[in-house]
């Protein structure tokens, strides 16, 4: 067993510097690496580029980094629920690259899987495709999108073991598996870190080879963005 375990979030984020490109898993506030984000705020790193589907909300998730102006550029697909994000973007304080959600996922996966680029039909004929190479396959037009290049990927899983194997829960899975191994260093935080041999190899979502460091996360808030319930009859 190659041991990927590090003792705490401080060790897990060793080497993170200003102006780096970071990938962060999560969809909305679901499955975000809460501990890594808190540590990024604490470290006070500046000028970072964040690849993340959303930018959190005003007072949670990546919104915390936005508020402190630590982010130079966001690469996201949807920013609808964050007023501070919209304000910084419209005022020009924040550089933003909005890309289709499936393209975001596939640019991560391409980086993980060793593809320099992929062709996608998404965004053809829109401003997203401006300046990009396009090509026709079987009568349909596609846009060339490049694999991401990132320094760190911060992902969050439900369970993991010391070998770095990961299991996700529900829709908190989202971009997390696609970002594993897609950056130079992948850091996984888990709700429950278990000894090797505990997890069933048949149930592993991400094999440890894609993970460089793993640590036991703490105090998960797991905030719900849109609590929607129905009444019992």
């Amino acid at each position: 067993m190659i041991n990927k375990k590090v003792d705490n979030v401080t060790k897990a984020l060793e080497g993170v510097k200003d102006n780096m490109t970071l990938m962060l898993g999560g969809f909305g506030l679901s499955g975000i690496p809460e501990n890594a984000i808190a540590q990024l705020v604490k470290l006070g790193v500046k000028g970072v580029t964040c690849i993340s589907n959303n930018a959190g909300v005003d007072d949670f998730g990546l919104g915390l980094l936005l508020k402190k102006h630590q982010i130079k550029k966001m690469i996201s697909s949807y920013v609808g629920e964050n007023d501070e994000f919209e304000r910084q973007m419209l005022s020009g304080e924040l550089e933003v690259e909005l890309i289709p959600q499936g393209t975001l996922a596939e640019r991560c996966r391409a980086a993980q899987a060793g593809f320099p680029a992929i062709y996608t039909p998404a965004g053809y004929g829109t401003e997203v495709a401006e300046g990009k190479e396009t090509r026709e396959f079987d009568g349909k037009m596609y846009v060339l999108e490049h694999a991401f290049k990132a320094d760190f990927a911060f992902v969050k899983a439900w369970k993991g073991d010391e070998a770095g194997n990961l299991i996700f829960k529900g829709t908190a899975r989202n971009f997390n598996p696609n970002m594993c191994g897609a950056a130079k260093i992948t850091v996984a935080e888990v709700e429950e870190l278990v000894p090797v041999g505990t997890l069933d190899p048949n149930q592993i979502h991400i094999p440890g080879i894609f993970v460089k460091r793993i640590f036991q996360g703490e105090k998960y808030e797991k905030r719900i963005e849109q609590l929607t319930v129905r009444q019992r009859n």
Partner: protein
Amino acid sequence: MLDKNGIAKRIAKEVQDGYYVNLGIGIPTLVANYVRDDIEVEFQSENGVLGMGPFPFEGEEDADIINAGKQTITTLPGASFFDSATSFAMIRGQHVDLTILGAMEVSEDGDIANWKIPGKMVKGMGGAMDLVASAENIIVAMMHTNKRGESKLLKKCSLPLTGVACVKKIVTNLAVIEVTNRGFKLLERAPGVSVEDIKNATEGTLIIDGDIPEMSI
């Protein structure tokens, strides 16, 4: 004239047995409430779930189980969870049978705009560009006019596009319209709405062939 639930009810009639369906945020989400219960349909949410069920009972919500609108949901027997790349493989790979989404503008060529108003509002495209670029069967659910009373069915979209020549059908508070290579073809009128009303609310080319029936909901 229909309200938002009326639009959803009418669209629900387009959902057929055995369909995998992706519902966008807003009016499309309401469609799930009106699908006939004697057919088998599975709802896909692009954040990574197939087999979406109703909202949870109070106290049973789970932060790890949400839909693309970030609302807490439940799953039905046979449901599955998956990562974002797999989710968009379902979409781009045309495994999803029907996509229903909202729009700010639709053109008579089937172009759609729904993600940005330059200088004013930027929400982002989310999964909409992947959905419209790939889906064979796209229905737009929207009000016929915007808050200022201006038509949302145009000759050309004025806002940045989400996709080109992709919308096949539009259901609004006033009408059901098919997008053809000659323009917007009026198929049905909403209850109490005249052809004249629809003509006045449509900026793009409106094709009226014979008697236009009132829709049944």
